[in-house]
């Protein structure tokens, strides 16, 4: 299990290669990659992600531990960036490794749902007209109910 909160970009291929090695009964790896997407007017200059330094790592680790136990995962990985990001940049990734695909899918979705609404990150979008804080979506909060 690894949780990294970082300013720097990451190489998803390298991360998945490291992640795959050494568990001879892993049959399924699911990864999720979050990317800064432009807004509908294509006016996004950049995004700024603020975090709560003391709490972030701890909160994510708690959800990762829960996922590993609940779905008997062989391994789980979360990388989340903060700071200034541009359209097309990677924001974060999650990877889960399991014997069977269903556990890998379910746990990756669980982690994403919790990261979205419970990990202390806040996104600010900077456009030509100014900036605004991204508002949380009702659906994201709602998504937690199924777990």
């Amino acid at each position: 299990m690894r949780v990294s909160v970082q300013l720097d970009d990451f190489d998803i291929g390298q991360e998945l290669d490291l992640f795959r090695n050494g568990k001879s009964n892993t049959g399924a790896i699911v990864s999720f990659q979050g990317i800064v997407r432009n807004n509908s007017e294509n006016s996004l200059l950049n995004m700024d992600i603020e975090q709560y330094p003391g709490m972030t790592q701890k909160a994510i680790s708690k959800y990762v531990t829960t996922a590993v136990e609940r779905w008997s995962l062989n391994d789980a990985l979360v990388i989340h960036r903060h700071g200034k990001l541009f359209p097309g940049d990677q924001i974060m990734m999650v990877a889960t490794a399991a014997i069977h695909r269903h556990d890998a899918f379910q746990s990756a979705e669980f982690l994403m749902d919790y990261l979205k609404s419970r990990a202390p990150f806040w996104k600010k979008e900077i456009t030509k007209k100014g900036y605004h804080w991204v508002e949380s979506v009702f659906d994201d909060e709602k998504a937690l109910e199924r777990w």
Partner: protein
Amino acid sequence: MIKVLYFAWVRERIGVPYEMLETQSGTVMELVEELKQKEERYKVAFSDLSALKVAVDQELCEFDAELNGALEVAFFPPMTGG
């Protein structure tokens, strides 16, 4: 002394990322009321608590949570990571 932290637009409205406070408040809610009495900027930031979340010692909790012995209280809007 308790460290009070603010994030995102809460930080912007209050004007500082954190401050050290001497308080007798027993719960988060009492602390919020105490701050709102102090200055207009707190009143603005805490005007709609349903738009805010709180963590005591880096654990999410409700506004009626007790503060006894807590080192850190943080106020922020709903998270939008991922």
